[in-house]
């Protein structure tokens, strides 16, 4: 693996992500044109529809310019972190996003931690004990939880842990560190039911695949210590699929947060998006989607780069592609 081939691979991936983001932003922007009805009326929000206000909207959003010019203006503004204003409150979209992002990021990180901390060990145990009791239990649970929708699970959690047992708060984000954490536990558990199952499955499959390889048999035959066998052979070689799973989990969490925030009435990006969609507040919709999409692309990029660090073969293959 040469430095140049690695660099070329990284730049290639970055370029790909940038192109995707531009295509995607164009799609998001086009929604405005696709939306049924007159964009002017949509952008009016709850202002009265007088000829004056309508003209003002036209001028402010350059609606008389050709479509591509409008998009270009929006895109260059977006690159300067200016995503326009909410048509309902007049608040800057970027400041609205900043205000809400905290809860979503905290929820995402907590979910990710729970998922990885439980998913990888459970998957490994299931894989190493394939067909035994532990494996059957873990696999059945995974099958169950992978199919459970987070909002339905969330509601059941509220009923049990907030209602019947009264252990944890049911809704809202709370104030301050410890209180915030208490408020985020149930949402994070609801969100991680599906992702834990995902990580369990990826890890289990990877471990089974690796444990059956000749190099494991050969290493056992020449007396490699069991601990080395587990960490340097099985775990190390299972890492690529596990990284894939981690990437999938992160992007799933970013998107799944939308539904879970609605379930637990958390003031995050997701609930901002949902209310904006319900109220047809297009600048907010565009801004939030763009931010979440950019985050997802970034996660994918980091996943790809993580492969590089783990598997020396990927850099070579990737560069020669």
């Amino acid at each position, binding site marked *: 693996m040469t430095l140049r081939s690695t660099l070329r691979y990284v730049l290639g991936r970055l370029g790909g992500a940038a192109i995707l983001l531009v295509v995607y932003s164009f799609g998001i922007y086009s929604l405005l044109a696709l939306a049924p009805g007159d964009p002017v009326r949509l952008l009016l929000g709850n202002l009265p529809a007088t000829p004056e206000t309508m003209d003002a909207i036209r001028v402010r959003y350059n609606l008389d310019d050709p479509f591509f010019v409008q998009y270009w203006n929006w895109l260059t503004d977006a690159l300067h972190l200016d995503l326009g204003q909410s048509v309902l409150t007049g608040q800057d979209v970027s400041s609205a996003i900043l205000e809400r992002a905290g809860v979503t990021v905290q929820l995402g990180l907590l979910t990710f931690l729970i998922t990885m901390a439980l998913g990888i060990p459970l998957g490994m145990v299931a894989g190493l004990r394939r067909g035994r009791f532990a494996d059957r239990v873990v696999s059945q649970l995974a099958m169950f939880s992978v199919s459970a929708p987070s909002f339905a699970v969330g509601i059941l959690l509220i009923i049990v842990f907030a209602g019947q047992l009264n252990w944890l708060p049911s809704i809202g984000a709370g104030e301050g560190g410890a209180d915030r954490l208490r408020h985020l536990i149930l949402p994070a558990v609801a969100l991680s039911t599906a992702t834990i199952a995902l990580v369990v499955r990826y890890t289990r499959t990877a471990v089974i695949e690796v444990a059956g390889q000749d190099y494991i048999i050969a290493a056992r035959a020449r007396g490699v210590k*069991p601990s080395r066998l587990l960490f340097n052979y099985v775990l190390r070689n299972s890492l690529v699929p596990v990284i894939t799973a981690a990437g999938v989990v992160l992007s799933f969490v970013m998107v799944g947060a939308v539904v879970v925030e609605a379930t637990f009435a958390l003031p995050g990006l997701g609930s901002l998006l949902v209310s904006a969609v319900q109220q047809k507040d297009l600048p907010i919709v565009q801004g939030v989607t763009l931010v979440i999409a950019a985050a997802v692309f970034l996660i994918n990029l980091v996943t790809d780069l993580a492969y590089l660090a783990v598997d020396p073969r990927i850099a070579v293959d990737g560069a020669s592609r």
Partner: protein
Amino acid sequence: MTEHASRLLDVAGLTIGVRTGGEQRILVDGVDLHLDLGETIGIVGESGSGKSLSVRSLLQLLPAGFTATGAAQLSGVNVLTASERDMRRVRGRQASMILQDPFTMLNPLMRVGRHLEEVLREKPEYRAMSKPERRAEVQRRLEEVGITDPGVARRYPFQLSGGMRQRVGIAATLATDPALIIADEPTTALDAVTQQEILELLISIQRQRRMSMIMITHDLRVAFAACDRVYVMYAGAMMEAGPSDELSRSPRHPYTLGLLASEPPLDRRLARLPVIQGELPSVRDQQVGCRFAERCEWATPDCTQERVRLAPIGDDRSSACLRVDEIGRELAARFETVEHGAVEAAHQDLSAPVIVALEGVSKTYGHGNGAVAALEDVSLTIRQGQAVALVGESGSGKTTLGRCLVGLESVSRGTAEVFGIDITRGAKLPRSDVRTWRSKVQYVFQDPYSSLNPRMTIGQTLAEAGRQAALVGDAPVLSVEEVLERVGLRAQYAARRPSALSGGERQRVAIGRALALNPELLICDEPVSALDVSVQAQVLNLLNDIRRETGIALLFITHDLAVVRQVADTVYVLEKGRVVETGSAQVLDSPSSGYTKQLLEAVPRTSSDWLGKRSQMGKA
């Protein structure tokens, strides 16, 4: 009793079973074997003989669900019943194992040097070393297996060739300095020339270190050349055992005889290869008696009734054949006729019309700097009814050439005419020409296990080919039954699916599918290399029969020179995409190219001088 003082391994009644869906299946039944210090034994058998399972059980490396019973004393430890903790002291220190496939035997994410270091670290003397000394120690151990380039220790396995990886695998296996090394088909995945090198390496190391070695192989010749004594296994049971030179000169079991006989000779062409009838019975229908009985021409009802076990027959030899005393003379006589079987001269009609004419053909993959040439400036002629062999190692371009002739690959440069059709035009050819081309040239693939559509019955597969023949239409279309008969299968096979067929049967069907189009040229790409020796001979005979009956031309693509000798009139030897030698089959007697000589030299021979001059260990 001095013998027992030097005994390293003693296995008695080793039985391996697996539980499947509540019932116990016996895969290895009552195997006895022993091994002395410094001795090399071979365990020979075709696929399904249980040879690999038997040795894996000695290190408790059987797959989950498999159980081994019996007794196996390795340096005083019963390795079948020892605890996992005790096994850790056995594995590596007492015995270590080299596996078949060098491409999967090393941890892909670990540098070569680490493979050695991680086991060396268990040794106190290594731990006492300084860093440069440790590096030198790793280097010294790599040099022992013939790796002199100091850069190799820092490379990853995927950056090395197959032969190099196998050397690294051997070095890692030796790093613990075991008393016994088990080599499980260590060279099967390698080219002939590399195989010879690796075997020579193993034997020289074994002698230098005075280790014991168990070599598992499917090739009797390899076992005879490399080992002091050889055990022959069939379907999970031991058939015969004895010193290499005696076993190779006078087999005392019908199976050993059959195995020896069906190995095609390199130096002469037999009118007909001796075969063992039938194929390996599936594990399901096993019987009490001799497992080989149903394929044995000497079998009597007793053979299937009585329990058989390897029994001594004098001269350090043993046989599991119940009738070994009665038929001993017959076996010897039969072996004599095989050794001097009817020889056939290669014959060909050089005035027959040319059906394939290649002139300066090249094939490159990719373009620009990354272009790889698979074929360079190849010229080749095939005449009507001729049998041409295309010989080379992997990467020689032999398969690419065959695939070009049926249009599975396109020719990059040069002129190529097949039955007067310019195949370089590829997709631009008129439909009628494509039809003619397809109907006149057919292809038989190497891997019988994936060359039939698993979701179609044999009848459907053959009927589809028949319909295609009717479309082209000048010759009478063969019915499914006729095709099956021609390839020696009963009509009932039409209703079966490929999964119910053995490898040899599938290859017969694949040949039948090709023949259903009444082609004039049949391209066979390593058609027997995936089959066991006993079945290989059956398929080679079938191809020779078909050729005699129909006058079809054959292009036989193979790496095996002994097979070439049995089928080919004309030989082309390819090396790295170029033809380095061509001529009638007699080139095998007097090759002019150094490469051909090297290939011939590398063909395994029974005599021990094949692997260098090897002094027989004194056993007197």
